[in-house]
């Protein structure tokens, strides 16, 4: 990473000037969207806090909003953060922090433009919340590592070109110390992606089977055995990824139910009214807390409230979608479609009430279960003592499984 200070300070006016230059050279109306995105990356206006030459200008992160607003106003095409969220939120900061110059130059541009989709090969059937218990093995063979194991809950694996992967390289070490971090080419022999059908009927996630997959040592991120430390960077960035645009009142799931309530007076009951008002109020409180978090980030005071937001939205989505099915009464007994589909995007509010109710069950499990997040808040925010642990210094191979 090129250190801040090597480039002259870039301020908001300078960024606006560069945006104008970009728009002049590549008018959005007559430029193919991908060409525009590539040009934007090369102009350092992709993620302005990244180093020059890698899509950024070493500018303060808070100035990204200036660029985004100017480009949106000009009707410029954007990359699709929802489709490439794992690449943007998890892979990119890790590659930037731990990758070689060659890796950064090869991988970051197509990642940002969306030409190459990323997925993450972290969770396993036996290692979810206790991620460091993972059992996928990587064994050194000359200049390569040979990887065998099974990953699960892998969204986007069926459209991904690349994956970030953690695997065990030394089973004789305690579980956190014997892990290494790799970049896996999803087109390599031995990588098999199978749809994992969920309670909604669709297969938004996948199982990934790795059988004798050969990964060159040049695609390792960080030192051998340091994979857990590298993964912490990835996971921290996953939790920071909340943010983005401001949400209007009734912008989330509550708006769908409120609209149904207004349009269908015949469905109303007093019990549902009490619960709806409470959930409306709690949704507004959560929205304001999210807005307050964004304001803190904007002035450079990131707080631990990000994990609070995830917990709040998981709980609210579940309660609101449950209320919605109930409100619909007889219609709530139906379901739109049980056909197996493999969507490219995660969409919590898409489809109908029954789908939303079932999909919301995942909100308190994916990206860290609510129980684990509560532990993290208790220990890291409130400073409460950790629970006693018995697995910390025992070699992984001797742990009960």
């Amino acid at each position, binding site marked *: 990473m090129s250190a801040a200070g090597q480039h002259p300070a870039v301020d908001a006016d300078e960024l606006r000037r560069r945006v104008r230059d970009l728009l002049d050279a590549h008018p959005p109306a007559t430029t193919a969207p991908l060409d525009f995105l590539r040009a934007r990356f090369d102009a350092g206006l992709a993620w302005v806090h990244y180093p020059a030459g890698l899509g950024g200008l070493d500018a303060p992160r808070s100035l990204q909003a200036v660029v985004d607003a100017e480009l949106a106003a000009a009707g410029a095409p954007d990359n699709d953060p929802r489709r490439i969220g794992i690449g943007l939120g998890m892979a990119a900061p890790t590659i930037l922090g731990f990758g070689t110059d060659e890796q950064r130059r090869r991988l970051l541009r197509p990642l940002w433009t969306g030409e190459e989709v990323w997925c993450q090969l972290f969770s396993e059937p036996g290692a979810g919340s206790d991620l460091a218990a993972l059992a996928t093995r990587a064994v050194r063979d000359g200049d390569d590592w040979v990887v065998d194991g099974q990953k699960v809950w892998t969204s986007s694996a069926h459209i991904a070109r690349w994956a970030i992967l953690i695997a065990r390289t030394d089973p004789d070490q305690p579980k956190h110390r014997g892990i290494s971090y790799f970049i896996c080419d999803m087109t390599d022999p031995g990588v098999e992606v199978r749809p994992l059908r969920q309670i909604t009927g669709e297969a938004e996630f996948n199982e990934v089977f790795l059988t004798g997959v050969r990964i060159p040592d040049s695609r390792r991120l960080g030192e051998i055995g340091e994979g857990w430390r590298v993964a912490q960077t990835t996971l921290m960035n996953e939790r920071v990824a909340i943010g983005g645009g401001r949400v209007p009142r009734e912008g989330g799931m509550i708006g769908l139910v*409120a609209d149904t309530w207004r349009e269908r*007076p015949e469905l109303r009951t007093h019990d549902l009214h009490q619960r709806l*008002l409470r959930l*409306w*109020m709690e949704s507004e409180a959560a929205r304001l807390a999210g807005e307050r978090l964004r304001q803190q980030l904007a002035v450079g005071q990131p707080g631990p409230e990000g994990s609070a937001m995830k917990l709040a939205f998981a709980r609210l989505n579940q309660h609101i979608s449950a209320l919605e099915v109930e409100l619909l009464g007889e219609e709530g007994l139906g379901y739109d479609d049980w056909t197996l589909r493999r969507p490219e995007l995660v969409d919590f509010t898409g489809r109908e009430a029954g789908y939303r109710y079932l999909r919301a069950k995942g909100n308190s499990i994916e990206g860290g279960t609510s129980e684990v997040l*509560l532990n993290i808040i*208790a220990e890291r925010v409130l400073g409460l003592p950790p629970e006693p642990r018995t697995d910390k210094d025992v070699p992984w191979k001797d742990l009960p499984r």
Partner: protein
Amino acid sequence: MSTPDLLYSEAEDDLRAAVRSLLTDRCPPATVLLEAESGRAHDIALWGALGAEMGTAGLMVPDKLGGQGATAREAAVVMEELGRAVAPVPYLTSAVLAAGTLLGCDTDQEPVARLLGALAEGRTVGALAVPLSTTAGAPGPPTATVRADGDGTLSGQVSGVAGAAGADVLLVPATGADGYGLYAVETAEASVTVEPLTSLDLTRPLAAVTLTGAPARRLAGPDRAAAAIGRALLTGAGLLASEQLGVAEWCLTETVRHTKERHQFGRPVGSFQALKHRMAALWLELVSARATARYAADALATDSPDTPVAVAVAQAHCAEVAVRAAEECVQLHGGIGMTWEHPAHLYLKRAKSDEIALGTPGRHRQALAGLVDLAAPTG
């Protein structure tokens, strides 16, 4: 609608530091308890230092009327600190409700301006003579239970008035031949009886006010009285959310401190997951409570058209968070939490009283239904 500022400004941080430092010195929990048992309506010396010397009594009163010219945002910060200390001072009743009502009257009138100046100075204590449970944001002003007679006197009774005992002046809504109006009555008059009630909240006691032909001065008539009282009650409810936030913060902080130190079964009890999750859940509620309280304060300060919604959300939310925090505080302190010596009960009593004060959460949610077009079933 402009983007609300949900953070604390540097000036607000400075104000908080000054108020907290004073309260830490002069108002530790043991002192609050002694004061509550003294039978005095409030801590007169503390109010002198905080209201008069520090100037918080006139915080929201414009400079030209003798105040500090600040807004509800700064007042909210004071309320947070007063909640954190369960301080027995008439800030809500005199500086917010009484002064706020006068601000809604015609301040070009000499009696209004003079009384407002006296309250802003902090040497005179006022109280708005309505029951503390009156729902802010309800359509229409509180019904007057006092009669204005043609001879310039008032007669009647108002129950459950916070801050009446200890007040020098009562602002009384009354009806008479001239309609609904707001009147000022001196409590020193023989025809005024202020009878303290045994109250759930020892630190903000209530009183019954009886007027029997009490001499009164009319401050506002039908054209302004109702709106002035309504706005003051809305401001009071919005700022009460910040007090509730302060109460809840103290409860969580003390509970975390206690459970880190208290050992049972060979471990600090705070290391047990069942307890950790309860404290983490409270912290989550505090995060959103702070956001709603800040939004209400900002809406009041900027006179946003969204103020009624902001206050209803903040009051319904923060009231319940404060009660839950206080109840968890008592429970997680175990037997210690049930004792008179430990201050947890002062916070529980304040939190539960605050939940009813200026409208219960249920009443605020009911108000919300009308404000955001979520009508109740018919029939």
